[in-house]
């Protein structure tokens, strides 16, 4: 097994952990943390892809963009979470299902 294969497995399993967080967690800030974990798996995958073909700088330029966009998503997600807590008094995602009532 090569280094590239090991790190690709890391990226895939890290994406699986992020998916696990998105599916099972209900706390809004923890959902943002799960999104951050997913973003890190994408960053690792992009750098590995560039490393495997000998173009590390191309891979890391894409990875930098993913890092920046992921941070913006986290900022807006946290702001939305704060607003939801002000409106509903809780950070439980199931409390947003007000249409069911």
């Amino acid at each position, binding site marked *: 097994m090569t280094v590239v294969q090991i790190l690709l497995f890391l990226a895939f399993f890290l994406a699986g952990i992020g998916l696990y967080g998105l599916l099972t967690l209900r706390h809004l800030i923890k959902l943002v943390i799960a999104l951050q*974990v997913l973003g890190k798996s994408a960053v690792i995958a992009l750098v590995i892809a560039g490393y495997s073909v000998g173009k590390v700088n191309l891979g890391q330029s894409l990875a930098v963009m993913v890092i920046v966009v992921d941070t913006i998503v986290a900022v807006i997600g946290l702001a939305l979470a704060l607003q939801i807590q002000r409106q509903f008094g809780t950070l439980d995602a199931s409390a947003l299902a007000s249409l069911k009532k």
Partner: protein
Amino acid sequence: MAVYIGLAAAILSCALIALRASRLLTSIVWLATTSILTAGLLYMLRAYEAAVIELSVGAGLATVLLVIAFAMTGDEIQPLRPLVPRRLSYTLILAAVLLLLLLLPPHIESEAPASDAPFAVILWQQRGMDTVLQIALIFIGLVTLLGLLDEGRSANTEAEEDEVEETDAQTAQPSLEEEMMV
């Protein structure tokens, strides 16, 4: 090879602990640790610029933002029942990971020497439009953030004004009753 395996295991462990921790502050600290280890891995893969940005943004800025959000919201007791049933979620995650593994190319070049253009040339010349769009996205995110926070502040101000009007109305009523008594 052993270093990469150890680093991969550490990153996976820290990410899993970050999501399964019961306290929010513990999750934030473990996420910061995951970011630091990821930056170290990127540095070992010769992606120096990405490592620095991951360290400063992922382990620095994101951690600060999460801690500020935690300070404003408090540590709510975590509910135990997941959104999706656990068996279904495990099945879906396993299926997704297996699909990704099946897409893995059978032949992967390993440790090829880096022979591409410099990072600055790629970022500003070859992918200049992507960089400009990224900067625009940052500004859009900031404006959205300001709008969201301002909406919350104006809603609180309106609520306070309504309370003041109600207390004024309540204090005005006894004086009218007194006049009628007289």
